[in-house]
């Protein structure tokens, strides 16, 4: 066990955990931030996507010991009032079905728009290909990302 100082959604947090504990479980179990989801545990589904210094990463595959001074943002910290341009687009397009994959989809899309504010459909597909949606909401996800980009 070791003690880690983390910056999560702009807040300092102290966590006692084993060095190999994935950030996913630190967020969910140690810090009660349940918005980041567990889907596969092996970086294959994207349900656990968070931002680390602005980049989308798979929190299931990042041990807490590798985070050190990075700024972590989770779905809970993406915006203050659910008013991120993607969240608004998600509402406009009524994207979710079961909803379980959606936090990861939004976080990944947010990182995409951060580095490319007017992605082509091809670029959207390439960026989002790592995020599974078992309910098959891909059509709506793509439409929502396009309209969010056009509202930037």
């Amino acid at each position: 066990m070791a003690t880690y100082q983390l910056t999560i959604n702009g807040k300092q947090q102290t966590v006692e955990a084993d060095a190999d504990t994935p950030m996913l479980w630190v967020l969910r179990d140690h810090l009660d931030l349940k918005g980041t989801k567990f889907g596969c545990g092996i970086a294959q589904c994207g349900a656990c996507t968070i931002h680390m210094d602005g980049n989308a990463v798979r929190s299931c595959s990042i041990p807490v010991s590798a985070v050190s001074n990075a700024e972590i943002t989770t779905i809970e910290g993406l915006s203050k009032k659910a008013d991120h341009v993607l969240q608004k687009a998600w509402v406009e397009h009524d994207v979710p079905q079961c909803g379980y994959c959606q936090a990861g989809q939004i976080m990944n899309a947010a990182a995409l728009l951060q580095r490319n504010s007017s992605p082509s459909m091809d670029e959207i597909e390439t960026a989002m290909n790592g995020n599974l949606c078992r309910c098959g909401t891909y059509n709506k996800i793509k439409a929502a990302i396009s309209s969010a980009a056009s509202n930037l």
Partner: protein
Amino acid sequence: MTVIKTKVDRRSFLKTSALAGGGLMIGFNWACSPSAEVKDPASAWFDINAYLTIADNGEVTIMSPNPEIGQNVKTSMPMLVAEELDVDWKDVIVKQAPLDNAFPRQVAGGSQSIRSSWKSMRMAGATARRLMIETAAKEWAVDVNSLTTKGGYVLNGNKKLSYGELASKAVGIEIPEEVTLKEPKDFTIIGKSQKNVDLDEIITGKPVFGIDYKQEGMQYAVVLRPPAFGAKLKSFDDTEARKVNGVTDVIQFGDKVAVLGNNTWAAMKGKKALVADWDMSGRLEDTPYHDSEMNKLLNKRAERPSRSDGDALKAMASADKVFEKTYEAPFLPHNTMEPMNFFADVTGDKVKLVGPIQTPAGTRGQIARLLEKSPDDITLEMTRMGGGFGRRLYGDFALEAAEISQKANKAVQVVFSREDDMTAGTYRPASKYKFRAAIKDGKLTGYHLSGAGIGRNNWVRPDWFPAGGIENYLIESSYVDSNITTGAWRAPITNFLAVAEQCFFDELAAEMGQDAVQLRLDILERAKNNPVGEIDYEPEKMIGVIKLAAEKGNWGKAESGVSKGFSAYYSHNTYVAEVADVIMKDGNPIVKNVTVAVDCGIVVNPDAAINQIQGGVVDGMGHALYGDFSFINGTPQASNFNNYRLIRTKEAPTVDVHFVESLNDPTGLGEPSLPPAGGALANAMAKATGNRLYKIPFVKDQMVFG
């Protein structure tokens, strides 16, 4: 005018009472669908299992113990009530009543879709509105017919009374004998897209799913289960597991071992550190065995046919040609994005269960028997479900949670890893279909379908298409007994039966030199005008969707570089036809677009309906392309998304949805677009590549697709 009775003889479908805290409560039954013509209503319709309440502050609530709050029902139910009650739909909220004794327990099994609640919800809304008017008429001492309603108020010229003000006073007023429902042309809420009511919680990451549930001090439990169906636990060593930081206990139950930890990761690590010795001497089945057993069955007559019209075998014997094809599909795991999980606290007098389950009443009953308690001592709270597809009809994971909690004397949440979820499934069973068609003088004179699958005998839908349209018709079903757990998977049976059937009709049309759509239409014309035997579908509606899909999907029109595949299927009372457009890119096929025509009666919430239909198509195509799940020595050969492929965004087609305009009562939407999807895809791929595919998965790992 749709008039519906609220009473038959002296029995009433609705009961009013005072709401605790002030207001009106109307009890009714979800599935009750009385109409003016109903003479002998089902007695179950009188069992109250849902409540519509109007509180003194005007708040309108639907209380239901119903688990099937998925597929957007939580949004569409209030729409139905609001429409008839004349309030804004956003002012009606659905509350899921916990499964305890405050609510009677007649929870119907299976999916309580919009179909079963279409009339009951509207009846409750219309009755409540009528009671509001009658109460206001008394208050003002005016004639009821002079009053109208709008936005939660009863209006009398420029005077108005809110429903909240009237609610408590309406309690004693007798329920009218019958109420009039709105005509579809007068709908202002139904038929207009409304957003999912849980949207904000989902996009901000609120803890709404079962796996998000947490109780102070609860332990996370991760379970080691036998590695193969048929294996048994001989012994295990937990020395290393107990050394893992955060592991608090190790509990054996049956052939399983649970590792408890104060966080999920600790429990997962603990499980990996267990060393178990398995008895593998039992019956361990594998895929080659299943294949050969199914093949044997396809080559002999079933004990008795599921349906026989005319004499199909004779038609085969006297045909110019017998055209025969066999299609095969493997087992499939459900792979809900949220892995199975459940919370149980068996430490107190009352047992507390929380989690994502589609069958709460049945599961509670099973847990009561397991723990030797009365169901009355068990509360079960349902959470939002991160996907179901049939998997959460089975409560195995809830039973595990209860047993571990009891043995450990701690509150626990059982969490499946993806590997646990995929390898301890209740799978869609593998199946095969052999079709034979007798062709004489260029005409289809006989049809013979044999279906065989694993685990249960229910492989055909003998009274659906093409029943009634072919003179000599024989349908058979048989099965192979197995110790692999199988169960319902989105659109049970038809999820592959439809693929096979719709591929066969495509091939048959080519063999007969006919257009694939025209062949279907010819059979349907016969079934409509002069059916052979009884049928259990409406050919007219099927013709309707086929024509609409053909038109919107440009069937029969050449588009350069595009190969089109057609498919149509009826299931869950809904009719769907699809045209898939496949193009070749660098020698590989890509599905670009799928045009879908749907007849599901009145479309209550169009955007949500489109979402369901698109999802079903993507799901059907994804599993037809990639679904690959086999067994060796009872052991599943895939365990996570690195070796089990699900369709991804690049491979998913755009899906263009068209509804048949209809004034009929709404029918199911969650499943019906899935069954035809694989057939439309295979038919288009056959044209695009010249290669007909008979076995799912159509695409093996080494093949590029998209």
